[in-house]
């Protein structure tokens, strides 16, 4: 598993007191948190846009998570960026473009719909169409054949059961 960077300050290196104090000290030094309700408490519309945007951006340290789910330090920085941009009045598109300008399309969790990804997005429907057409041809052809049993079928296979 990829781990977020840890600061190896001298304070952390020395075992001072109980392990609990050590733990809290380590965390308090950078105090990164999964966001609290302090994010736009008075503005539900901005909060909603914030929740949407943080699920659209990928954490570049823990790469299979969004910045919403990751507790890596970089994810916290990105969330701060989104918060500040929203507070400054930027639109969703502008905020996402800010990130892709700096990090490329990879930072978007949702692959963009560009010529490069047309194949990806059309894959489900294409596959069904191709498969369905082949199946259709098979079915039409077979429906014209007599439905006698296959010569190599064992006699005891011809039971009335379905399965």
């Amino acid at each position, binding site marked *: 598993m990829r781990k977020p*960077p*840890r*600061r*190896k*300050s*001298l304070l952390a290196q020395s075992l001072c007191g109980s392990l609990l104090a050590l733990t809290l000290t380590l965390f308090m*030094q950078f105090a990164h948190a999964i966001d609290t309700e302090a994010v736009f408490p008075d503005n539900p519309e901005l909060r909603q846009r914030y929740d949407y945007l943080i699920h659209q951006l990928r954490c*570049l*340290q823990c790469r299979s998570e969004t910045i919403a789910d990751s507790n890596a*330090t*970089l994810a916290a*920085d*990105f969330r*701060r*960026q989104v918060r500040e941009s929203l507070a400054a009045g930027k639109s969703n598109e502008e905020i996402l473009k800010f990130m*892709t*300008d*700096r*990090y*490329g399309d*990879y930072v978007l969790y949702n692959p963009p719909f560009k010529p490069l990804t047309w194949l990806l997005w059309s894959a489900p429907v294409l596959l069904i169409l191709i498969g369905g057409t082949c199946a259709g041809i098979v079915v039409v052809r077979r429906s014209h054949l007599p439905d006698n049993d296959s010569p190599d079928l064992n006699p005891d296979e011809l039971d009335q059961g379905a399965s």
Partner: protein
Amino acid sequence: MLRYLIPIGLFAALVGFFFVSLHRDKETLPSALIGKTAPAFHLSSVQDPTKQVGTSDFAGHPYVLNIWGSWCIGCREEHAVLLQIAKRNEVPLFGLNWKDERDAAQQWLQQLGNPYTESAFDPEGRAGIDWGAYGAPETFLVDANGTILHKHVAPMTMEIWEREFLPRLRQAGAQRQ
């Protein structure tokens, strides 16, 4: 009849891709800023909190920006190489101290040596985001016009310096003339 060859045909194509893909570097993200203007910043110096340093200090000549932190193991690995490069005096090294603490950073430079002409202090990582940084160390080559020519992710080695940075540096210098 030929349709029975489709499965093996598709499979062969798949294997081909995997073969090529085995040796591709999965970790590195290609930089979105190559060929674009280096994002400007103005921050306090690591060594001297009262002094301001920024990209404008290097306007008109090429420089190398190295993103580092005292917490970063890879930075420790590449430090000796950076000192060597600094000694060669081909191009100034500009450090961006990323998401670090001032005293830890100062101690690091004191203990291990300082290859940087200057190091800017970016504790919150804002300048880092502007430069598309997602980890340390990262090293950028910027030309005299302020255009980012190249980015290297992971510790610097002499080999990479000579193979990827020097040729571009010389080319940029030649074009200026």
